[in-house]
């Protein structure tokens, strides 16, 4: 562009509507405001401003309509921070009923299962707020706080992301800080239920690993390929720890370091992704501390206690995750599937193969879908029963903690998404979940004491309804 514009669009935008548009843009064509303005005569400038002030009423009402990217932006920010700050959010209000008594349904292992009743709003309800601030065209600061059900809820572990994104050259971006731990096709959108059609991502695939955030960074490179865009991303860091309740006594799970690579390709209809992540478990024992303490105490009397302790000791163990996923959406058919393999050297950690496939079809504002998800995690540790009957309860408890806590289950889901407004969706989902007695990674039975360890088939129907909004 040889000639500079008459005046900058940002000036125009700020006149037209503080409320609707308040993001800066890396716009090299923008001319200095002073020089730009001097090109217009005072008379025409005044009339233009009057016209635009009238328009700002329309802008105000448009923003108040609750429209997504319009209303998401805080009006006053333009003048205060030069047009580069925005606040937006998302939320879900959900209700879940599970049919099998005393076996509450959890969406992921980090949820506070002891507080979840047969009918509960805890599993899917969440609220997220995101602040974007762009001080320079090539630099953006992003922070997102999400309130959702967790065993341990603190302000610090509710900060889902907080990073600086730097794009020194087009098609390459570097993010440093707290970023998403990008293992799955839908990793970074798990909390944003509006962005997918189901009530929740399949628990077989997404529920076993409670890690969302990575303190570290990632480097993404993009290029055009065919009709779409190819992205390659490298990431490294330490996961934000998550407390999980395998019994009443929670353990704190994290991986550090985690290093991974993802390659994805996306065009208008297709989205493909392949990723490989290698990480090291940052946790002493994959069992509650009371169980570990008891085993340590009896180790001198019962040699097998040491075998069990060795199986539970996971610090420094490698955990590798490889996954492929694809999604197709032509506006009518919507097909999504993923497959993954997790490998860990210790039998006390979930591993194995996971897969799901979902097919949906859009009819106007309705999108009914059918999904099947499966997770298979074979593990078994045989330890002879101790001679001393005093040790039997400990033997039962510790072998069950390995042999009955695998992530083995499958779910058939039938549901529908109904787009009631441009920023609001209502969803209804029915799940039939079945798990063998040994597949109880997600099915800790609350308050049942020893009976929690008794073999039990999970064969339950789960009914869910959610309201998802963007704002």
């Amino acid at each position, binding site marked *: *562009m040889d*000639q500079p*514009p008459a*005046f900058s*669009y940002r000036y*125009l*935008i700020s006149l*037209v*509507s503080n409320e*609707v*548009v308040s*993001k800066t843009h*890396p*716009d*090299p*064509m923008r001319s200095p405001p002073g020089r730009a303005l001097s090109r217009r005569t005072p008379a025409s400038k005044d009339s*233009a401003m009057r016209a*635009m002030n009238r328009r700002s009423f*329309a802008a105000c009402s*448009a923003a108040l*309509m609750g*429209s*997504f*990217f*319009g209303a998401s932006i805080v009006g006053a920010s333009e003048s205060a921070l030069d047009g580069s700050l925005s606040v*937006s959010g*998302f939320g879900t209000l959900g209700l879940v009923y599970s049919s099998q008594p005393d076996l509450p349904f959890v969406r992921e292992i980090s949820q506070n299962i002891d507080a979840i009743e047969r009918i509960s709003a805890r599993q899917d309800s969440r609220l*997220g707020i995101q602040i*974007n601030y762009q001080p320079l065209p090539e630099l*953006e600061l992003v922070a*997102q706080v999400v309130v959702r059900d967790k065993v341990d809820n603190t302000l610090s572990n509710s900060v889902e992301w907080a*990073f600086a*994104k730097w794009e020194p050259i*087009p098609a390459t971006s570097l*993010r440093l800080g707290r970023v*998403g731990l990008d293992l799955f096709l839908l990793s*970074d*959108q798990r909390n*944003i239920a*509006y*962005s*997918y059609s189901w009530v929740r991502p399949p628990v077989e695939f997404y529920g076993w690993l409670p890690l969302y955030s990575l303190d570290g960074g990632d480097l993404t490179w993009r290029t055009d390929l065919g*009709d779409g*865009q190819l992205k390659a991303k490298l990431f490294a860091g330490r996961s934000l720890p998550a407390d999980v309740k395998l019994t009443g006594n929670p353990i704190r799970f994290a991986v550090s370091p985690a290093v991974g690579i993802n390659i994805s390709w*996306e065009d*208008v209809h297709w989205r493909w992704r392949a990723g490989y992540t290698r990480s090291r478990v940052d946790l002493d024992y994959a069992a509650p501390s009371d169980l570990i303490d008891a085993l340590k105490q009896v180790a001198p009397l019962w040699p097998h206690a040491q075998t069990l302790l060795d199986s539970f000791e996971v610090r420094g163990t490698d955990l590798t995750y490889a996954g492929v996923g694809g999604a197709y*959406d*032509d*506006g*009518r058919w919507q097909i999504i599937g993923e497959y993954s393999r997790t490998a860990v050297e210790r039998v006390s950690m979930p591993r194995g193969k996971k897969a799901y496939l979902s097919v949906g079809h859009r*009819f*106007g*504002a309705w999108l*009914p879908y059918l999904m099947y998800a499966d997770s298979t995690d074979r593990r078994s540790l045989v330890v002879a029963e101790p001679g001393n009957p005093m040790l039997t309860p400990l033997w039962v408890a510790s072998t069950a903690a390995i042999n009955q806590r695998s992530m083995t289950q499958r779910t058939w889901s039938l549901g*529908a998404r109904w*787009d009631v407004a441009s*920023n609001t969706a209502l969803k*209804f989902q*029915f799940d039939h979940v079945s798990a063998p007695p040994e597949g109880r990674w997600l099915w800790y039975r609350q308050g049942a004491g020893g009976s929690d360890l008794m073999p039990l088939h999970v064969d339950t129907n789960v009914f869910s309804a959610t309201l998802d909004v*963007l704002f």
Partner: protein
Amino acid sequence: MRKLILFLFALIGLVAPLHAQNTRLFVVVNAKNPIASLSEKEAVNLFLGRSKTFANGEYALPLDHATSSAVRKRFYYDLTGKPISEINAYWARLFFSGQGTPPRIVPDNEAMLLIIRNNPGAIGYFDYEPTGRQLKVVLTLDSR
């Protein structure tokens, strides 16, 4: 449960697709913009945030109509074949994972014209063919 499912599908049958317009949409840039025309693929890339520049390497400033407006709904449907809820879901995924920012929303046609007239990088769309020496139509979209 069976009754509920039957009820759901009955509701689905009642909701007919609403795509009956025959008019065209016009994608417009500033007359100073050196590009003569834009392919549908290039328009998709610009408006879905996959490319930030025009073919000549200049930065683009895509502009969008109000989120719930009829013209926005038609534009994305004609361009991608997807309903506007899918486009909103797409942007929710990118925006809330820190991967991109959607096109700027302007309140009405006049505001969009004003920005395009005054910024060589701006690109917008209209359900009529806007005239004026400072404007240039680079793509005409037929309704699907």
